[in-house]
C-alpha cells in the first residue's frame, strides 16, 4: 500500500543520493597548496599534481579532492576509469554525489592527530588527520571475509602504528549514510555518532565524476532552481488570488448590505426630492414667469418696426429646456445682408443679455437663420391687460 500524501509531506525531503565507492579503488595523497589560493587555483594545482604523479592522463581518471578555504594542503584521490564498469557508472546518473567512502567522513570535526577507522566488508580504511582542516593520509587494507577477530584486531593495530602519532582513534562500524539536511547548503553524512558536514562547494570538488559532466549538471541544477522559483511565484500568486476571492466575497456581501440600505432609503429620498422640486416649482410660479410674447415683442417691436421688412419669422420657440429668459426665432430672408444688421441692433437693446445667430441650411434665394436671444432676468415685465 502506498504512503498517503500527508505522510509524504511529514517525512520531509529524502536524503540526497550519495554513491560511496570502495576506498580500495583509489590512490590518494595530500598535495601542498599555495597560501591564499582561490578554489579555481586549487583545482588547477590539484590537477597539475595529479598529472605529475599519476601514470594515467587526467582524462582517464575519476578524481576529486578535499580542500577547505585557507588550508595549505588538499587531499587528492583518483582512480583509473576502467576500474569501474559501465553498469556502475550508469548508476551514478541520478546521484547527488559520487565519492570514495572515506571522503564522506572528511567533513567531520576532529582534533589534531586523530585517526578514524572505517570498517567495511571489503576491508579497513584509516583516515588520519595531523591537523583538523584536511586529512593527511588515507590507508585501505583489504580483509579476508573469513578472517578471525584476532586477525582484524591485529590489522587495526598495524594500521594505527603505521600512521603513527594518533592521539585519538575512532572506530566506525557502519558505513556513512546521507542525512536529509539542507542539500542546498551542505550534505550531512553520518556514521554512528560521527557526523561529517560537507559544504556544497567542497562536496562538488569531492565528486569524482567527469568534470565537464558535473559542470553540465550544475547548470541544469541552476535551471531547475529557477523553474522551482517560478513555480513558487505562481503558487504564491494563486494563493493571493484565492485570498483575493475571499476578500471579494466579503466585499460583495458588504456591498449587498449597502445596496439594501440604498434601496430602503430610496422611497424616502424620492419624496424629499419631489418636495424640493415642488418648492422650486412653486417658487418659479410665484416669482418667475415665462414671458414669450413679451420677449417676441421686444425683438420685433410692438408693431414689428424693429424687424427689417425683408425678414420673415417662420417659427418661435421659448420655455422648456431653453429656460425662462431665452427665445429662439427662425428667420428667412431674400436679403441676407440685413440679418447681421438686425442682430447688431438687437445686441444694443438694454434688456438683451446675448444674441446669437446661426446659419441654417438654405435653398434657392431664401437664406435661413436661427436667432437665439437671451434676456436679462427681470428686464421684461408682463404686458398690461
Amino acid at each position: 500500500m502506498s504512503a498517503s500524501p500527508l505522510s509524504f509531506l511529514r517525512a520531509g525531503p529524502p536524503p540526497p543520493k550519495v554513491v560511496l565507492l570502495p576506498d580500495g579503488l583509489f590512490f590518494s595523497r595530500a598535495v601542498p597548496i599555495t597560501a591564499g589560493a582561490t578554489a579555481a587555483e586549487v583545482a588547477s594545482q590539484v590537477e597539475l599534481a595529479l598529472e605529475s604523479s599519476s601514470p594515467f592522463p587526467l582524462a582517464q581518471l575519476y578524481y576529486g579532492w578535499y580542500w577547505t578555504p585557507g588550508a595549505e594542503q588538499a587531499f587528492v584521490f583518483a582512480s583509473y576509469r576502467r576500474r569501474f564498469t559501465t553498469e556502475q557508472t550508469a548508476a551514478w546518473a541520478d546521484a547527488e554525489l559520487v565519492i570514495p567512502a572515506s571522503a564522506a567522513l572528511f567533513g567531520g570535526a576532529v582534533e589534531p592527530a586523530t585517526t578514524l577507522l572505517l570498517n567495511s566488508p571489503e576491508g579497513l580504511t584509516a583516515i588520519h588527520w595531523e591537523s583538523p582542516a584536511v586529512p593527511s593520509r588515507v590507508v585501505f587494507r583489504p580483509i579476508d571475509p573469513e578472517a578471525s577477530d584476532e586477525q582484524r584486531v591485529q590489522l587495526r593495530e598495524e594500521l594505527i602504528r603505521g600512521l603513527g602519532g594518533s592521539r585519538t582513534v575512532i572506530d566506525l562500524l557502519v558505513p556513512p549514510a546521507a542525512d536529509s539536511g539542507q542539500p542546498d547548503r551542505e550534505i550531512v553524512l553520518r556514521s554512528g555518532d560521527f557526523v561529517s558536514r560537507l559544504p556544497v562547494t567542497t562536496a562538488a570538488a569531492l565528486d569524482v565524476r567527469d568534470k565537464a559532466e558535473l559542470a553540465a549538471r550544475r547548470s541544469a541544477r541552476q535551471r531547475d532552481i529557477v523553474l522551482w522559483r517560478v513555480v513558487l511565484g505562481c503558487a504564491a500568486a494563486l494563493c493571493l488570488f484565492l485570498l483575493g476571492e475571499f476578500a471579494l466575497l466579503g466585499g460583495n456581501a458588504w456591498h449587498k448590505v449597502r445596496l439594501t440600505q440604498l434601496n430602503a432609503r430610496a422611497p424616502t429620498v424620492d419624496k424629499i426630492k419631489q418636495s424640493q422640486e415642488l418648492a422650486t416649482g412653486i417658487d418659479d410660479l410665484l416669482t418667475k414667469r415665462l414671458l414669450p410674447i413679451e420677449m417676441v415683442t421686444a425683438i420685433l417691436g410692438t408693431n414689428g418696426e424693429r424687424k427689417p421688412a425683408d425678414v420673415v419669422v417662420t417659427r418661435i420657440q421659448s420655455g422648456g429646456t431653453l429656460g425662462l429668459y431665452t427665445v429662439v426665432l427662425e428667420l428667412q430672408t431674400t436679403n441676407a445682408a440685413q440679418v447681421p444688421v438686425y442682430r447688431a441692433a438687437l445686441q444694443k437693446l438694454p434688456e438683451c443679455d446675448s444674441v446669437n445667430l446661426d446659419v441654417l441650411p438654405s435653398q434657392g434665394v431664401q437664406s435661413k437663420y436661427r436667432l437665439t436671444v437671451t434676456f436679462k432676468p427681470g428686464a421684461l415685465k408682463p404686458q398690461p391687460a
Partner: protein
Amino acid sequence: MIRSFRAFFLSRALREKLLLVGFLGVAVVMWASAYSSRITAFFRAEHNTTVALKDQDYWLTHRAQIESATQKAASQMDPSKTLDPVHLTVVVRQLAGDSGVRINTGRAEPEVSNGQFSINRLPVQVLNTDWHAFAVFYQHLQERAPYLAITELAMQPIPANPSQIMATMTVESFEIRH
C-alpha cells in the same frame, strides 16, 4: 512541507517541470485576468453605491429644511384658487373659448407630486387662429398667474395664411390637496 515539494519537483524530468510551470503560468494568467475584471466591476459598483449613498445622505440631512421650504412656498398660495388636472383643463378651455381661440388639449397629469402638493401639466395645441385672438388668450392665461403658468411655447405662421398662427404650449397649475 515546501522542502518536500521542492525535492519532489527537482526530482522530476525536465518536461514534467516545464509542463507544471506552463500549467501554473496559464492558471495565473487566466485567474489574474478574470479576477481583475471582477475586482474592477466591484470597485466601480462600490464607487457608484458610495456616491448614491452620499447623495441620499445629503437629501436626508436636508429633509426638514426642504419640507419646511415646500410648506412655506405652498402657504403663499390660496388653496381655493389652485387647480387640479380636471379644473386645469376646464379653465384653459374656458379661457380659450372666451378669447375666440380653438384649442386641442392633451391629458392633464401631475408633473411633480408629494401627495399633498402637485404641479399639473397640460399640453395645449392652438389651432389656426389670428394673432389678436391668441394675444387675448395669452393675456387671460397670464392673469391667472401664479395658479396657471405657460412653461413652454412654440408658434409659427400658417404658410398658406400668414395672418394666422398655430402654436403648441404647456400650461401648468399648482394644486393643494385637502
